[in-house]
């Protein structure tokens, strides 16, 4: 009997000390300097309209959004989350892509063996490569469906004309990103898929041969193509895409939030 009472008090003491520690941390200057007012990590977050606004205003990620949105805009059936998912897939691709870069060298002699080694001897290597590839296909699909959704809602009409143009550019960039990544494993699939694609571009009128030469870094696909497409894939195109993404998101808000209701 005495033992259980003692045990309970001891656990109670521990709980008290823990909650005290929590209060000290949450009340500290350092903690409050990191989490701005309205953060749910702050001490004493209560669900009030003021705090709901603070959550959005005081977060670098959330403040892509306005504090309030039209009621119909939060219906999943309106947007199907396609634009947001495209962006999320882009982030996922960046994260998995950075992981892959640690194990990959873009040379004709090493590219394929690096991928093979990644699949067999790197922890989670195969899983991350799978995720990168499937996410890439999914992103092409979701960007495409996002465009179709926007068209069917007539959301490209004034004042959103220019944002539609930015969106078409983003679609093109997405296709290019996927296509440049296609070559990097340097297997038969990569080589010949890219050969088919670039042969078509070679038929550009007047300066087709030059276009093909610039793209391939030579007359045929080779080691030069690999390093060229690698840089395009991991630096140049993501960089350009990010700039257009920023403009795209900014214009969504400047043009009055998402369109509708129908």
């Amino acid at each position, binding site marked *: 009997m005495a033992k259980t009472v003692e045990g309970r008090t001891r656990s109670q003491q521990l709980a008290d000390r823990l909650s005290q520690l929590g209060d000290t941390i949450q009340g500290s200057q350092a903690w409050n300097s990191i989490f701005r007012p309205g953060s749910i990590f702050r001490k004493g977050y209560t669900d009030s*309209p003021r705090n*709901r606004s603070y959550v*959005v205003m005081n977060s670098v990620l*959330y403040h892509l*959004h306005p*504090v*309030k*949105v*039209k*009621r119909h*805009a939060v219906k*999943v059936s309106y947007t199907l*989350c396609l634009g*947001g*998912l495209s962006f999320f897939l882009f982030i*996922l691709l960046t994260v998995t892509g950075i992981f892959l870069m640690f194990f990959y060298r873009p040379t004709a002699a090493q590219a*394929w063996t690096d991928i*093979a080694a990644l*699949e067999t001897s790197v922890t989670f290597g195969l*899983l991350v490569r*799978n*995720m*990168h*590839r*499937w996410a890439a*296909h*999914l992103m092409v699909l979701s960007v495409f469906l996002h465009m*179709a959704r926007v*068209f*069917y809602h*007539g*959301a*490209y*009409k*004034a004042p959103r004309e220019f944002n*539609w*143009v930015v969106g*078409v550019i983003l679609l*093109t960039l997405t*296709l290019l990103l*996927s296509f440049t990544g296609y070559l990097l494993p*340097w*297997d*038969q*699939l*990569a*080589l*010949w*898929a890219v050969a*088919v*694609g670039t*042969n*078509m571009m070679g*038929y550009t*009128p007047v300066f*087709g041969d030059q276009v093909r030469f610039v793209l391939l870094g030579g007359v045929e696909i*080779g080691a030069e193509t690999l390093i060229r497409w690698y840089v395009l894939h991991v630096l140049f195109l993501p960089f350009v895409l990010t700039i257009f993404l920023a403009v795209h998101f900014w214009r969504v808000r400047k043009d009055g939030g998402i*369109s*509708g209701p*129908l």
Partner: protein
Amino acid sequence: MTEVPEHLLRRAKERREALGSSGGDEGGEAAAPQGADEAASYAEAEKTGKIPAHLLERSRAARAKAGGGEAPASEGAATPAAGAVATAPPPPPTVAGPGGHTQRLLTVVKAGSIQDVKAKPVDKVHTWPHLLVVEFVAALAITAFLLIFSIFVDAPLLSLANANETPNPSKAPWYFMGLQELLTMFHPMVAGVTIPGMGIFALILAPYTDRNPSNKPEDRKFAISLFSVHLMFWAILTIIGSFFRGPGFNFVFPWIDGIFFHL
């Protein structure tokens, strides 16, 4: 002291003139001595730019009646109770602006310039939690789907690239299969450059060529049908190119000859 704008002064003067002359016309013929008096005082006020004498008198009388305070010496009849409360403190001296005015019009502000009359109330909800929760769930769902799919389905890795050994068939990535399928029908320049180029160009120009302002599906049957036809056309080409093309890019049935397709 700030000056009253000239155009306002001029307008006030004109108004005063109009009032003064009309008062004179009516009051004079009606043989009302008060009316004649008023007209005269208006005319005088116009000359000196001061408040008409009869108005000043009237206000003085009213003030005397109300407060019983300081009564002007000239108006003995108007202040019967003046003697009784002569000890009352004098009212503060009136501060008069230029021309004896006690009030000034600073500016006239029209309603439209200070309030947005177009603004209609919009039904809105807080982004947190209503939108962010939906986004969070969607992100989690797609991550879970990708993770599980990636556990069970491996990305293809064929043998090392060999420029001397062409696989049969050689296929482009699936999003270019529509173009490769077009290659079977058109010259490569048309299939590979002209058609996709014009497609992207048409997409970019869509908001500028579609002059219909409505976004309601029932109002835009033409635009929706046109887009849907192209979408279906493109999807069918992609599916045929991906699954119904075998060695030599000849037509095959996937359930008979197998699938010649890698993602």
